[in-house]
């Protein structure tokens, strides 16, 4: 069997896991990274067909997006694994973690298997399913976490639902910790949140929209931290959105609890005022918060207190978004804007590139126990070539998702994915894509 080899030269290598940020090169053999380092391959023949000249652009591990909703199975008109994967590669994302709140709910080992096989057959990126924490996401009966984990579930979550029964949650966490498996929680008090559409505050009052206070998130964060303390479960808050939540999580981490948290790119880039004149693409869960909270979240990413940035990609069809604000569906797509939003924080808020890329690669990999997310010998050659400075205006018609509900229409960005590789193979090339 012949060895398939590709050499990347003239790259700015950024590997957040090791702290590497240097000019150098990387070699891929049979889908895995065979060599990587500063000053490597400086004198290689750049016309060799096996050589890719990175022209000084950033070569980083492909992004791992820990929070992606698709419509497969059950709502394929919104998004399939295939269409989500096309959006992913265009955004430099090489692994997507898909949520279990599909129809049917992913709460059976055979359904985990279905997602994996379906992704294998259709998707261009690695697709890893999370399974439901409770059967049918009803918050009553825990799922078969052992069998689901063996089938390939990487974590357990009730997606965008918060368990209200603490007895069930306690037992589910204790049971999960038996298998050392990760539980991902959503923090929005179900009763306080019911029927609301935006963040409680002056602007919501002016709009006359039903609103939920940030405290609805904080109290669940604090509650769940207590249950983690009781059970020893590994726990990840899928996305938080306000300063007080972050404070509680920071304190819990300082006490040595196995807790991590994520934030969506929308919540780093937008605030409650972006809802503007009832713009339903800004209706997300949890709601966009105050500018003070948004700024605190950016600081949290910069300090490392927030571990992971996710797209929270949630494709919605026009019929569910073209509605009065309170009736419109929640959710925004984000796979293709994840990297540009993160790079924006580097350009405008001075967040170090290594920190931002770490929250998109090595941090989710280590939380989920994945082999990727780093530039290291033996790691899968999932890579992204990034032009950190390329300016563009976001045109929803150029996005690859089946859905169009981006909150960033017309927004100016600086920096994007130029080329994406999964297992050493090119799965996206912007120059070819723009010629389509």
């Amino acid at each position: 069997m012949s060895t398939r080899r590709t050499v990347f030269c003239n790259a700015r290598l950024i590997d957040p896991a090791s702290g590497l940020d240097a000019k150098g090169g990387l070699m891929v053999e049979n889908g895995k990274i065979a060599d990587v380092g500063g000053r490597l391959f400086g004198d290689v023949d750049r016309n060799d067909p096996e050589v890719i000249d990175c022209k000084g652009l950033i070569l980083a591990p492909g992004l791992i997006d820990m929070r992606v909703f698709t419509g497969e199975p059950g709502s394929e008109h919104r998004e399939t694994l295939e269409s989500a994967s096309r959006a992913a590669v265009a955004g430099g994302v090489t692994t997507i973690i898909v949520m279990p709140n599909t129809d049917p709910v992913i709460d059976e080992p055979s359904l985990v298997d279905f997602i994996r096989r379906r992704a294998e057959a259709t998707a261009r990126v690695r697709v890893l399913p999370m399974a439901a924490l409770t059967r049918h996401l009803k918050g009553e009966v825990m799922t078969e976490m052992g069998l689901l984990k063996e089938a390939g579930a990487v974590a357990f979550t009730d997606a965008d639902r918060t368990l209200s029964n603490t007895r069930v949650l306690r037992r589910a966490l204790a049971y999960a910790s038996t298998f050392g498996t990760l539980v991902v929680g959503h923090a929005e008090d179900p009763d306080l949140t019911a029927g609301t559409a935006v963040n409680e505050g002056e602007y919501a009052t002016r709009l006359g929209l039903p609103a939920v206070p940030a405290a609805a998130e904080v109290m669940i964060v604090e509650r769940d931290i207590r249950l983690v303390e009781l059970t020893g479960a590994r726990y990840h808050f899928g996305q938080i959105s306000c300063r007080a939540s972050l404070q509680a999580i920071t304190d819990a981490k300082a006490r040595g609890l196995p807790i991590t948290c994520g934030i969506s790119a929308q919540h780093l880039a937008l605030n409650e005022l972006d809802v503007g004149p009832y713009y339903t693409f800004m209706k997300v869960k949890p709601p966009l918060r105050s500018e003070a909270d948004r700024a605190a979240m950016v600081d949290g990413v910069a300090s490392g207190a927030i571990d992971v940035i996710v797209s929270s990609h949630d494709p919605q069809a026009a019929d569910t978004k073209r509605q009065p604000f309170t009736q419109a569906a929640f959710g925004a797509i984000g796979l293709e804007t994840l990297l540009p939003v993160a790079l924006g924080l580097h350009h405008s808020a001075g967040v170090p590139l290594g920190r931002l890329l770490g929250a998109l690669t090595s941090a989710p990999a280590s939380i989920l126990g994945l082999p990727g997310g780093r530039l290291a010998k033996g790691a899968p050659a999932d890579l992204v070539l990034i032009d950190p400075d390329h300016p563009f205006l976001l045109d929803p018609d150029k996005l690859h998702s089946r859905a169009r509900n981006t909150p960033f229409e017309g927004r100016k960005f600086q920096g994007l994915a130029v080329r994406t590789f999964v297992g050493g193979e090119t799965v996206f090339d912007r120059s070819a894509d723009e010629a389509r």
Partner: protein
Amino acid sequence: MSPATAVPPILKSNHLLGIEGLSVAEITSLLDLAEEYVALGRAKEKKSPLLKGRTVINLFFEPSTRTQSSFELAGKRLGADVMNMSVRTSSVTKGETLIDTATTLNAMRPDILIVRHQDSGAAEMLARKLDCCVVNAGDGSHEHPTQALLDALTIRRRRRSFEGLTIAICGDVAHSRVARSNIHLFSKVGARVRLIAPKTLLPVAADRYGVETYTDMYEGLKGVDIVMMLRLQLERMTGAFIPSTREYFRYWGLDRDKLAHAKPGALVMHPGPMNRGVEIDSAVADDIEVSLIHEQVEMGVAIRMAVLDALSRGLCAEGRNV
């Protein structure tokens, strides 16, 4: 001098409420006495007149086949009059309190009351209120002393000594009175006890008992001499403490594969009744080379005869202590 006072006393207390309050000497004497009743039970003439004229009441608030019939047989072999009262036929279903039921029975002047109740501490409450001997035949999630004693007798007959033995108690430890009594007993007599269960079924602060805890059967069974399986209370477990019985069997059900990780020659016990294919595989349960399950039942009768014998030695020869 009546025969009852001619033999040396075994128990300091007038009741057998749990293993926790027993000394090693009391446990050893009960096991030694039970050996005599094993021999009697294997003889053609299985009866002794020791409790002739005495009244033993079996008061069972929870359904039981094995323990109740074992006590009944033990009492009858010792010549006592045995009356069975179970909850379905008692006036407890008509709203009578436990104390009222017990004092009513007390007025019938029994010598020994054997009680099983779904609430922890019920046997102790009766012992305080009544003036007959009380034997705890299982109270809630607290203790089931005769089960632990019969388990100990079964093991001692196979292994001679408890010193240096490692005993794994597997399954629903959190709700098990059998597990609690066994933990007390085997810790007292010098064996090492391990608990193996999913975290939802491990009792809180189990380490304070001086036992080791494991969640992985393969790891926990390493080097184990005796594997004690517990019954999974299916009716209240599924969904609450474990997701399903098929998952439970996959990770905590004892099959040949998991048993192979224990010490060669390891023996398997189960207090019964078994859920085959849930906590134990039939291939293991029915393997007479490793399974002590039927022996446990035989030892159960002998132990209960020994307990009735021991308690009767404290009874006044002329009648009850009033």
